[in-house]
């Protein structure tokens, strides 16, 4: 696998996963708002904090209204992480990886791009939004299904999985970080709504059903955080994703060096218990995890993506 192509596949998968995670997050949060108990003052700005784009948002909009936030996250060309831009970037990487992707896979990614380009800006309103997000998620699932069921387990698969899992780790940690802060910051007299809010966190990570079967019907903050970060059966949990990265990259040269930060985090996660940590502690813990993700990304860059002739000889 060419270094340049490996780099593009990694980013293709990251952008696709970013779009999918964002779609799930928006759908879950929009639903929460629909049936939130009256008087529960839920703002839309929490979404901007999750995608870590407050400065960019504030530059563009004064009011943190539903319309502005949704437009910013779905269809704003000035927001590099918007669904529209993620898909545009995926498109460029898809085009340049065309030679290594099976035709069928290339074609459905291409169709996804046409779908988003044709529909995203008309889907800001609530009425159209749900249908759009559902359709978008289904198309992502179609791509994931094709990758899982038809792609040879070679370097193409490895770098696609690598990009996807890295993005998922990134998004999961941010949802937990911002979500926990928002929920624990609720005024005392709103405590009744809290399980509802934690359910939304689980939904936004597609984790509700798995949580209910594994943990039980009671949705409680420490249990949710433990499940999302540490579950060893749920494939979207942080710990599961990190182990999967290590596993999928194993056959590659220098993989031990690249995945060392993730392995360190995995051992930390084994000892982790949300009930024994306070809010600032959790925030610091997640900051450390983010730092390890960045270290892994940089190591992959150095060992695989930007090889110079001098290094090779």
């Amino acid at each position: 696998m060419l270094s340049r192509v490996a780099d593009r596949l990694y980013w293709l998968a990251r952008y696709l996963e970013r779009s999918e995670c964002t779609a799930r997050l928006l759908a879950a949060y929009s639903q929460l708002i629909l049936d939130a108990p009256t008087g529960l003052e839920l703002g839309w700005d929490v979404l901007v904090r999750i995608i870590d784009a407050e400065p960019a948002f504030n530059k563009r909009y004064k009011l943190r209204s539903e319309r502005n936030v949704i437009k910013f996250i779905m269809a704003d060309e000035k927001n590099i992480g918007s669904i529209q831009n993620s898909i545009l970037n995926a498109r460029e990487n898809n085009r340049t990886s065309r030679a290594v992707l099976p035709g069928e896979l290339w074609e459905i990614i291409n169709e996804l791009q046409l779908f988003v380009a044709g529909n995203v800006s008309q889907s800001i309103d609530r009425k159209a939004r749900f249908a759009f997000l559902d359709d978008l998620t289904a198309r992502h699932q179609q791509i994931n299904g094709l990758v899982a069921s038809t792609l040879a387990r070679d370097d193409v698969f490895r770098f696609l999985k690598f990009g996807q899992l890295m993005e998922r780790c990134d998004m999961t940690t941010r949802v937990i970080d911002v979500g926990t802060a928002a929920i624990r910051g609720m005024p005392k007299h709103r405590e009744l709504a809290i399980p509802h809010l934690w359910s939304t966190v689980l939904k936004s990570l597609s984790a509700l059903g798995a949580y209910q079967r594994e943990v039980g019907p009671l949705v409680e903050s420490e249990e949710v955080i433990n499940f999302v970060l540490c579950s060893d059966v749920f494939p979207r949990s942080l710990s599961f994703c990190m182990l999967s990265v290590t596993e999928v990259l194993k056959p590659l040269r220098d993989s031990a060096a690249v995945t060392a930060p993730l392995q360190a985090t995995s051992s930390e996660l084994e000892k982790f218990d949300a009930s024994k940590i306070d809010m600032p502690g959790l925030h610091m813990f997640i900051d450390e995890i983010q730092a390890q993700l960045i270290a892994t990304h940089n190591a992959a860059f150095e060992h695989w993506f930007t090889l110079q002739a001098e290094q090779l000889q």
Partner: protein
Amino acid sequence: MKMRWHQFANTAFYDELITAKGSPRAVARRLVNLLNRLTPSELRSRREAMEHAIQDMGISFTVYDEGSNIDRAWPMDIIPRLIRAAEWREVSQGLSQRTRALNAFIDDVYCEQKIFADGVVPADIVLNSPNFQKACVGAKPQHGVWANICGTDLVRDFDGKFYVLEDNLRVPSGVSYMIENREVTKRVWPELFQKHDIQPVDDYPSRLYRMLASISPRQKKRPCVVVLTPGIYNSAYFEHAFLARAMGAELVEGSDLYVDQNDCVLMRTVGGPKKVDVIYRRIDDDFLDPEVFRPDSTLGVPGLMRAWRANNVAIANAPGSGVADDKVVYVYVDKMINYYLGEQPKVSSVKTYLCNDPEDRQFVLDNIASLVVKPANESGGYGLMVGPQASVQQHRKFAKLIANNPRNYIAQPTLALSTAPTLCGENGDTIEPRHLDLRPFILQGKETWVTHGGLTRVALRQGSLVVNSSQGGGSKDTWIVED
């Protein structure tokens, strides 16, 4: 639907599907019958189905200077162009013959230069050509073959005979569209495929791989073949990716390759350096190696020519192949066939006047309004003048250009390019005749092989003879049909 087939009758042109009497040719009878049965709305919905298929399959070509919208849907006409298999067999023998002679010529030019000594081709027109690469003199590509992939443009004149319009021996493109057009027509006209015996076109990539493997310097079961592209902004990038994928070859850019101290070509992979055996290059000679050609090229690979001359890597087409892809050299191809192969040409060339020759030049200047004047070194239909369609000012401008630089111009009679029924009109539901040509592809390595048909390009504007997709041309699927 009532088709106005009479508009195809008694014209000054040969139509591929309709006879001069306005009835379908035998080969096209089933197709024409089906078209007659379709209602205008059925025809429209088939065309829409085709457009969707092209979009979903991502069949595109790239246009320069359009800001961010550089990728355009491939223009294709829904009605295929049919050719009888028996006729095609003869044409393809002629194409194979022609390519073998051209390769013998290139090899001769860079090695012994016997054809000059024997006075068959004048040395100066070849050796003074910008396409003659001094850096290639004495090189010995495998099997003595230089132009491994040849795209030959054919046209059919009023007499119904095929003529070779030009030989493209540098980096001919279009073959992926030939294959994709077939995929699209299968989706649009499935019923016709059940009723016809149509020769397949999708074996091209495996033929190409086999040919490329046959020129590998290392004799391995699966030599390392790569496709070298200038990158995503090249107009044929779609095709580069298509062929690389279909051959299971890496699609590389210049920066992915380097030449080591042993003059071997290596590519940068996640697993470390990997040796490359064969480069199917889709960049021009000038950009191949900044050490030898243009020093400012960032598309190529420094040292590549050293590696090639040391026979550590094969390059297809070999650098310097363009020497035979010159409209002045074209005039001598029939003689080359005779000289190198001892055979008579099986496909004719078009009568061509060399502006370098005083007698020819006078004829061209006297008859400029009825001739097509072409620069000797341009491709893509650029810089040519079609006399009967040009203004008096353009005639004068070209007369002056010829007088200033006679070596750079040739002229040919204006051919009555054949037509074929094509879906036209604002609503896309009228069928009108449009001019077309045909580009088959010939592969020569250890053996020679010709595609079943090729890429038919069609001028979509009424009366136009310019078929290039960069200038408003479209394409048709081409069926070689067993009788």
